[in-house]
């Protein structure tokens, strides 16, 4: 049991870097944060980087000649290079956005309007987050394209049997790398080559993957990869879109204004090179710098370690929750830690997930409850709402124990 012991110690060490995890709740409980799939906590190094930017070298970028502007520009572009390296692309292929959602919208508007027409199909899966579904609904409305869906079975696994038929005539496959409600990891290594063979481009929604798994976009061979800083130790208000250089070059501009142009006349404009062509107006400079520090922290701990750690914690949690079955606790989705990100959805008897979450909150345990921005999946599965616990590098067995004890309390209150 050496590895177990080692990783245990490391999570405790890691926790010291996260100031919020050291603060007791209003009721004086230890904060047991099990909602990292919604947003992660931030280490001191990230918070300090934001602070340093505003206190020491806050200035607008790219155009300033003076010292602090030079320092800000360098830090901003350097962050881009680090985030790009983190997912295995070059800085010229990484566009800053507000979040994963905006990254997907950018593709739907810029690439979508230019390349998708009546009769074209876009293939999604039944487990997509609203952010990787609604933009394609609107694109379909604009262009007359149709949407198709890779089904998900009751166990929460993607059904790939009819994949080639589904891909026939598809312009794009847009798919979550890891589902946010059930944690299902999409077998991209089996799916992407078939999409390629069918001539479809591939957009991967990496919002739940980039924080938790080693990601290499060139190995994945996808055309687009969207992710958010706030779910991976970074600040709010910054995310990124990876796109293959040639595709970015060919894409028309989306948002326009300062900083993304090359020349402007009253009547017409020409545009800057990617990635700047897609970054209109003053960027979230502090946010980008913080994102760079966040991926440094993750790379330092090691994505391999993080993945193994989460698998272990998830395994323990699945085991401990199974023991609560007598109180009516029911876990959804694949029950194999190898096949899911550190995400577990469940319900406790006839107790509504919101009530579960409220009672857990009284014990300092933070989980999410509701439809998790996957309403169609919930409808399909026949669930009104689920409770969801999600794990990250700073969680450990103590957190699982706290979850279980709080669930026992909820069961007691509801007399289950």
């Amino acid at each position, binding site marked *: 049991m050496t590895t177990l012991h080692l990783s245990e110690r490391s999570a405790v060490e890691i926790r010291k870097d996260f100031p919020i995890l050291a603060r007791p709740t209003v009721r004086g409980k230890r904060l047991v944060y099990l909602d990292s799939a919604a947003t992660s906590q931030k280490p001191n190094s990230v918070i300090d980087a934001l602070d340093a930017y505003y206190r020491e070298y806050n200035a607008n970028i790219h155009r300033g000649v003076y010292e602090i502007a030079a320092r800000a520009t360098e830090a901003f572009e350097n962050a881009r290079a680090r985030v790009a390296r983190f997912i295995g692309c070059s800085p010229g292929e990484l566009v800053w956005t507000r979040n994963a959602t905006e990254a997907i919208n950018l593709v739907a508007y810029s690439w979508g309007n230019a390349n998708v027409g009546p009769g074209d199909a876009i293939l999604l899966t039944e487990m997509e987050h609203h952010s990787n579904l609604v933009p394609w609904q609107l694109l379909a409305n604009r262009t007359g394209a149709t949407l198709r869906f890779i089904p998900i079975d009751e166990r929460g696994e993607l059904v790939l049997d009819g994949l080639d038929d589904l891909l026939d005539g598809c312009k794009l496959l847009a798919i979550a790398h890891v589902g946010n409600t059930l944690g299902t990891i999409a077998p991209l290594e089996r799916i992407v080559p078939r999409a390629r063979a069918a001539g479809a481009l591939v957009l991967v929604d990496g919002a739940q993957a980039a924080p938790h798994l080693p990601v290499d976009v060139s190995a994945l061979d996808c055309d687009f990869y969207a992710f958010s800083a706030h779910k991976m130790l970074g600040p709010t208000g910054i995310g990124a879109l990876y796109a293959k250089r040639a595709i970015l070059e060919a894409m028309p501009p989306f948002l326009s204004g300062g900083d993304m142009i090359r020349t402007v006349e009253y009547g017409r404009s020409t545009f800057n090179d990617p990635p700047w062509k897609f970054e209109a107006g003053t960027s979230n400079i502090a946010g980008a710098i913080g994102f760079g520090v966040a991926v440094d922290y993750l790379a330092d701990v090691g994505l391999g370690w993080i993945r193994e750690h989460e698998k272990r914690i998830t395994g323990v949690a699945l085991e401990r929750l199974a023991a609560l079955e007598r109180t009516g606790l029911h876990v959804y989705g694949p029950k194999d830690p190898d096949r899911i990100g550190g995400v577990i959805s469940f319900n406790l008897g006839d*107790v*509504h997930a919101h009530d579960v979450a409220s009672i857990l909150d009284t014990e300092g345990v933070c989980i999410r409850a509701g*439809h998790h921005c996957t309403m169609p999946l919930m409808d399909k599965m026949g669930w009104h709402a689920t409770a969801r616990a999600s794990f990250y590098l700073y969680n450990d067995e103590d957190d699982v124990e706290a979850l279980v004890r709080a669930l026992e309390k909820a069961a007691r209150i509801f007399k289950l």
Partner: protein
Amino acid sequence: MDDFYRDYILDHYRNPRNFGHLEAPTVTAEDLNPLCGDRIRMELLVDADGTVKDVRFSGKGCAISQASASMLTENVRGKSLEAVAKLTKEAVLENVGIGISPTRMKCAMLGLRVLKSAAIGSLAAWPDEE
């Protein structure tokens, strides 16, 4: 919040009063809380004087939204539509008891919101006004 889940709340949650549908409702309204997906529908039978003769609610949601809607329906028979339209947040909170956290306030008020909009005939615009 744990103080909130008392026996009578659980009873209203598990055995909601006036749950179901009216055969020929005079007015109905329905709304959902987009944040949590909870839905409530209210159906009223109103006589020519504007007095509420009968009421049913339906929907799906947490103990807070279901119990508070259930309790609300116990208090509307015999009331005028005007009086229903004037029901306050405080009246609901008196019914359901103390200890609702701010995040759950919208759950507690969903039934009221729907009932009032049935009485008024339109939904309140900015939720903070309630």
